[in-house]
């Protein structure tokens, strides 16, 4: 090489060159954008714990967890989360009783039985169903499902956990069916072919080979469904009534944790009051509940994951 070349390749690629400085600046900006999601999580955890901490200065944690009355707006307020928790659990159970069978059957049907043409039509349709705003489902529960249920069971009140839960189930079906179907489609063809070669029918192949092989994905679809149901707000706020009710009877009206937050937020509670802090304590309970299910889902995925 001639000595006229004063810059070596390594100098031209030096980190100090403006081109490379710019590259690193851009990378930093992109990294900051990615860390916004972490900041969001930190913000959520911090604000929930911070406000709940002030709430628990007034209300003993033990009372919060064991008292069976939730009457924050009475003159002698009592703050027992149990009635709200039971409301949340009951509506979620009703929803799952609808969504798990329907979602699983639809997933198996689309993945193993339906022709490609039917699949091309049904999948987008389910996606559309999943895109309907939940307030619209709430309206549907209140104006259609409740009256229909009352027609068959005249003793049913106008607001009930049953009506809200049933509609919530319909709203969750698309999530469960589409995730379960993805899991089943990921099962390699060779397993199905093996089953067919042994003389299995479609149904036997689907239920005894494909479903067990996809079980980790299907179970985590259920878990996602549960955490959707637990966090669902507008359907229960509109159709389940707004009174906390210490019962697991689905034919009764009741309030859920999320519906309580909505109720308080619609009123005009001053910032820093105990009522204001109580919605953060409720939110913290909700968050812990969904966190529990998310961790369960994670463990299930890890425990039952099949590798091919």
């Amino acid at each position, binding site marked *: 090489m001639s000595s006229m070349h004063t810059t070596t390749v390594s100098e031209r690629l030096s980190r100090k060159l403006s081109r*490379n400085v710019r590259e690193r600046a*851009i*990378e930093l*900006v*992109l*990294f900051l*954008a*990615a860390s*916004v*999601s*972490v900041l*969001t*999580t930190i*913000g*959520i955890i911090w604000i*929930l714990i911070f406000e709940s901490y002030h709430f628990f200065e007034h209300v003993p944690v033990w009372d919060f967890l064991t008292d069976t009355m939730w009457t924050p707006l009475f003159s002698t307020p009592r703050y027992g989360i149990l009635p709200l928790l039971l409301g949340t659990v009951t509506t979620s159970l009703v929803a799952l009783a609808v969504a798990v*069978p*329907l979602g699983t*059957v639809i997933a*198996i*049907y*689309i993945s193993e039985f339906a022709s490609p043409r039917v699949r091309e039509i049904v999948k987008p*349709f*389910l*996606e*559309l*169903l999943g*895109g*309907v*705003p939940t*307030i*619209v489902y*709430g*309206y549907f529960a209140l104006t259609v499902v409740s009256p229909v249920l009352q027609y068959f069971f005249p003793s049913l009140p106008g607001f009930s956990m049953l009506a809200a839960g049933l509609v919530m189930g*319909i709203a969750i079906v*698309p999530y469960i069916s589409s995730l379960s179907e993805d899991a089943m489609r990921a099962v390699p063809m060779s397993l199905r072919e093996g089953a067919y070669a042994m003389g299995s*029918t*479609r*149904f036997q192949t*689907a239920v005894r080979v494909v479903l067990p092989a996809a079980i980790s994905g299907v179970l985590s679809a259920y878990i*996602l469904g549960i*955490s959707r149901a*637990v*966090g*669902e*707000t*507008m359907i229960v*706020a509109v159709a389940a009534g707004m009174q906390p009710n210490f019962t697991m009877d689905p034919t009764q009206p009741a309030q859920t944790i*999320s519906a309580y*937050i*909505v109720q308080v*937020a*619609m009123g*005009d509670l001053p910032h820093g009051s105990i009522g204001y802090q109580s*919605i*953060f304590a409720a939110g913290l309970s*909700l*968050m812990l509940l*969904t966190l529990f299910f*998310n961790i369960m889902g994670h463990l299930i995925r890890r425990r039952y994951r099949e590798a091919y």
Partner: protein
Amino acid sequence: MNNQDIASIRGIIRGNRRWDLIFAVAGFLALTVGVLAFVTLFGQMVINGWERLNPDFFTSFPSRRAANAGILSAWVGSLLVMLVTALSAVPLGVAAGVYLEEYAPKNLVTDIIEINVTNLAGVPSIVYGLLALGVFVYMFGFGQSVLTAGLTLGLLILPVIIVATREALRAIPVHVREGAYGCGATQWQVVSDHLVPYATPGIMTGVIIGLSRAIGETAPIITIGALTFIAFLPASPISSTAPFINFDWLWSGFTVMPIQMFNWTSRPEEAFQQNAAAAGLILVLMTLLMNALAIWLRYRLRKSIAW
């Protein structure tokens, strides 16, 4: 094998085949339940709300008299909130997706961000409302404004956009990157000149799905304390005098379509239920349209790209 054995084997096969049929019927019925629910939901709103759908409904403010009430402040509010949501979530989400897919080294920090994005998608929307109430409304002092609502929904749909961006980038074959690097492009040149343009349809699909989710979100907006009875419009973003653009609307009080619908739904009078049906119809049509657009985009994408 004697005839009796063959007959019994045939019997078993028949029995098993019957289960096939039973299940096919069950699957079809399950689908019918879904279709039926959707048709009833849609049909009921059409029947109930149809007569309210006249031009006045779109140009009137809410009113104490149901027949005069309209959704002017609601659809304008929804539009402005969506504008803030899109402007905040799209650049952030795309940048985060690009970082995670193209730049991020394999280390603990990256793992934390990835797990975090997955978990955020599972956080109930009302919890985002609490975050916004505590942080945006009171700590940052944004108040119960269009800005707060837009940013809240922006954070809510961020995971959707990040995941869509990553999937779109992952689908681009590695030889596109190698070709560009081979010509001496820097990483940013590869990303901005090649990867992002190729990924745009996929990103757009995610953005539309995210926005269609945001436009129907009610709970977080109620939680930040949006008013339900708004008889004014936020200041216009565009003015006729210099400097032509103003940002007063960001700080304005507002209402959005789902909140207006919730407000009408929770009133006992039949006339307001009609308004709720009409508002719900428009809301559903908007989200359906956006979802259909996203599905169509994805369909076209799958058909047209041959690397």
